[in-house]
């Protein structure tokens, strides 16, 4: 995405980007995370390249949402390191009680966009206001300009005519597309999708997947947690199967779906496909 106007970027982002071209978009090194006694991520190692689309599948409790949340900075890891475009954003060592987002994380938070299962739109704002808010407050864009960018984003997800609608006037699929537009407005280089179609009625799922497919072809780096196997087979560069906090199997979508190696993978897929 090289067509960003200069004043839309935070001051240091260009420097960060220059420093890190050629590095993987996201790296997790021995990342562990526990909630109380329960270990949710077990020493995960993962590297995701630029423009790669990675789909993560797995049962509930497997840690896939937590994985996304740690990358986004919503959860603090207990051990290991997370790097975005080469720059560490979280670093923890279980021996020492230091957890926290590193200073670089503030800047890089804007490089990562996230879309949630339950949309999380701001109910007291119209679609356009939802999309424009961060532009005004974080990028300090003047109101007019933010509104124009917001409208363009809404056009991109085919919701241009709904810009003055409130979330409760929109269908689930429309709300989710607004949420995607809102995340895209900040021009992130990485987009995280946390089961974004799971809360939708089946007939509304397609319109959201369509937007996501388009993003993939445009070269967005994406991590998608989903149960939509069709989408995974069509769009993913790589599929990861997670179980109990670890990546059990990883590979080509065709390979995973047609000839899974691991027994747990096979068990999960057969349970899923028999529905």
């Amino acid at each position: 995405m090289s067509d960003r106007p200069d004043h839309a970027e935070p001051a240091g982002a260009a420097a960060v980007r220059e420093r890190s071209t050629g590095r993987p978009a996201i790296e997790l090194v021995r990342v562990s995370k526990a909630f109380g006694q329960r270990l949710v991520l077990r020493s995960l190692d993962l590297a995701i390249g630029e423009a790669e689309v990675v789909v993560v599948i797995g049962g509930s409790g497997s840690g896939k949402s937590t994985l996304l949340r740690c990358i986004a900075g919503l959860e603090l890891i207990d051990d290991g390191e997370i790097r975005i475009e080469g720059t560490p954003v979280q670093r923890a060592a279980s021996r020492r009680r230091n957890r926290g987002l590193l200073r670089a994380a503030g800047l890089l938070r804007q490089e990562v966009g996230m879309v949630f299962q339950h949309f999380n739109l701001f109910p007291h704002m119209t679609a356009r206001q939802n999309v424009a808010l961060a532009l005004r407050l974080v990028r300090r864009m003047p109101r007019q300009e933010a509104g124009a960018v917001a409208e363009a984003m809404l056009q991109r997800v085919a919701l241009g005519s709904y810009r003055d609608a409130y979330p409760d006037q929109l269908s689930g699929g429309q709300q989710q597309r607004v949420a995607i537009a809102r995340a895209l407005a900040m021009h992130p280089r990485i987009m995280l999708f946390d089961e974004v179609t799971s809360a939708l009625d089946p007939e509304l799922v397609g319109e959201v997947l369509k937007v996501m497919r388009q993003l993939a072809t445009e070269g967005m780096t994406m991590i998608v947690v989903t149960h939509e196997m069709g989408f995974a087979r069509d769009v993913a560069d790589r599929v990861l199967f997670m179980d109990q906090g670890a990546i059990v199997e990883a590979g080509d979508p065709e390979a995973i779906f047609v000839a899974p190696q691991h027994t747990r993978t096979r068990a999960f897929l057969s349970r899923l496909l028999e529905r």
Partner: protein
Amino acid sequence: MSYRFEWDVVFNADMVTIVTIGLRYTLIVSFLSLIFGNCVGLIAAVLRISGKPPLPQLAYIYIDFFRTTPALVQLIWIFYVLPIIAGIDLSPIAAGVIALSLNAGAFLAEVFRAGIESIGKGQRDATFVLGLSRFQSFVHVLLPQALRRVLPATGNVLISLIKDSALLTTIAVPELTYQFQTDVARTFRPLELYTALAVMYFLLTYPLSLAASALERRYRVT
């Protein structure tokens, strides 16, 4: 019943003056207390959820104290004791507004806190990933939603304040009750006058309670 009600003591020219003055003070005190009470309540709620000791504890002490002691006692204390301790001069109205504001504020603090906490975690997640600071997220996303939840309660708080404003007669604030009490002392006709007084309060608060119900229906949070 051997008492003969004679309503001329109520329906006469003097009464217009009495009611006008009394109403003015009642309404001024009630509205000022509503405004200040909301400010105090919001601050107290924010302190309570801030999680930075000792702020939540201080807020909790304030809220607990003002909810467990009688409003009358609070009023008397603020009018008689506080000026001596703090070395300041407090007019009866000032003391009255302060006492009612703190009283209403304690109640409103809990309403605000519940309103803020009822906003799902997802909203905070969304503001975080968009890059908003905690302050921005509170002012632009959380507070507007909390206010919408709190709005219906405001009507009831105002009604409460109008009723409690009658307490201010004990510190000689010339509101409605004080005016009527003075008139009773002059005319020795408590039955007619106090009946009229009760009706006056009813006429003040009943339309408000209807409006509050309407507000509640309109702003109901699904």
